[in-house]
């Protein structure tokens, strides 16, 4: 089944029309999206760096992760809210952009990983984890989320 009809529906939606008709609507959500990205990235990075044995190494892993959690969740909520109208108002461009699908696949992977496996891992006793797996987990997280950001930026530049 093709998703094209869904993207055509999004493109024609009144919200899309509103965003295309208003000069400031798109820039404003883009600005908020980018600030939320920085907050989200900071919350991801302090924990990934801690997993790699860098940064806040004197604080227990679980505490670093618990402190970062609200900024991670709320950063993501804002990213989602400000991302949807951008996707909707350019739905057909997105549908035909390979970078959009790259971003969405990496995003899905990143979300599932971050809120299941990684979340479980950062709550586990560090002594039981050993030195190897936390590093793999941190490196994997940084790679996937960097992939999301690269794909996202390229939608606008190379599509």
């Amino acid at each position, binding site marked *: 089944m093709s998703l094209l009809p869904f993207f055509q529906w999004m493109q024609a939606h009144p919200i899309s029309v509103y965003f295309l008709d208003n*000069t*400031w609507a798109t*820039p404003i959500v*883009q*600005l*908020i999206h*980018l*600030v939320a*990205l*920085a*907050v*989200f*990235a*900071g*919350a*991801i*990075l*302090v924990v990934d*760096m801690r997993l790699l044995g*860098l*940064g*806040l*190494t*004197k*604080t*227990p892993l679980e*505490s*670093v992760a*618990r*402190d*970062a959690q*609200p*900024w991670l969740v709320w950063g993501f909520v804002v990213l989602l809210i400000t991302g949807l109208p951008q996707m909707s108002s350019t739905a057909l461009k997105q549908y035909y952009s390979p970078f959009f699908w790259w971003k969405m696949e990496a995003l899905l992977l990143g979300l599932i990983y971050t809120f299941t496996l990684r979340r479980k891992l950062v709550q586990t006793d560090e002594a039981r984890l050993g030195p190897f797996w936390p590093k793999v987990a941190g490196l994997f997280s940084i790679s996937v989320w*960097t992939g999301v*950001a*690269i794909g996202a*930026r*390229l939608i606008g*530049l*190379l599509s």
Partner: protein
Amino acid sequence: MEIRSLFEWMDALPSSIMLRESIYGYPILLTGHVVTMCLFAGLVLMMDLRLAGLGNLHTPVTQIQKRLFPWQMFGLTLSTVSGLLLFYSQPMRYFPNFYFWLKNLLLILAMANAMAFHLTTYRSVAAWDNDRVPPFPARLAGGLSLLLWAAIIMIGRMIAYSGLVPQWWLDLGLE
């Protein structure tokens, strides 16, 4: 005008033209600028939240400062290099751009705020290192830094919207 001739001179240099005309130069530099901004600004915001008493409260202030600082500088170096190359590739695109100048002004203010904090309030950090809510001057510096870096990110994005600027700026006729 002197700045204008400097920009025009740079704009005509062979290496500037080469970068400007290469197909992948701009996309690679801009993508690199965003990714390295995430490293720099992400970690600066995490530090600011601690100073403002809003986040990362399980870690003492000095730990955040000392342990994140090298990575912030690493991110800053990479985003500065990519930013300067972006500028170098199109000086005459940025010369008449309102948001380009505004971003640079805000960058100076953010640096001044960080410098002022380190030379004054941070000297007494031993007395409040573990406080969940640091003293007012520290919260002020953290809050200002949060606002300034958020503004820098937003104004940087606005550089792409060179037409959405105050009329008096367009009336200067810099184009």
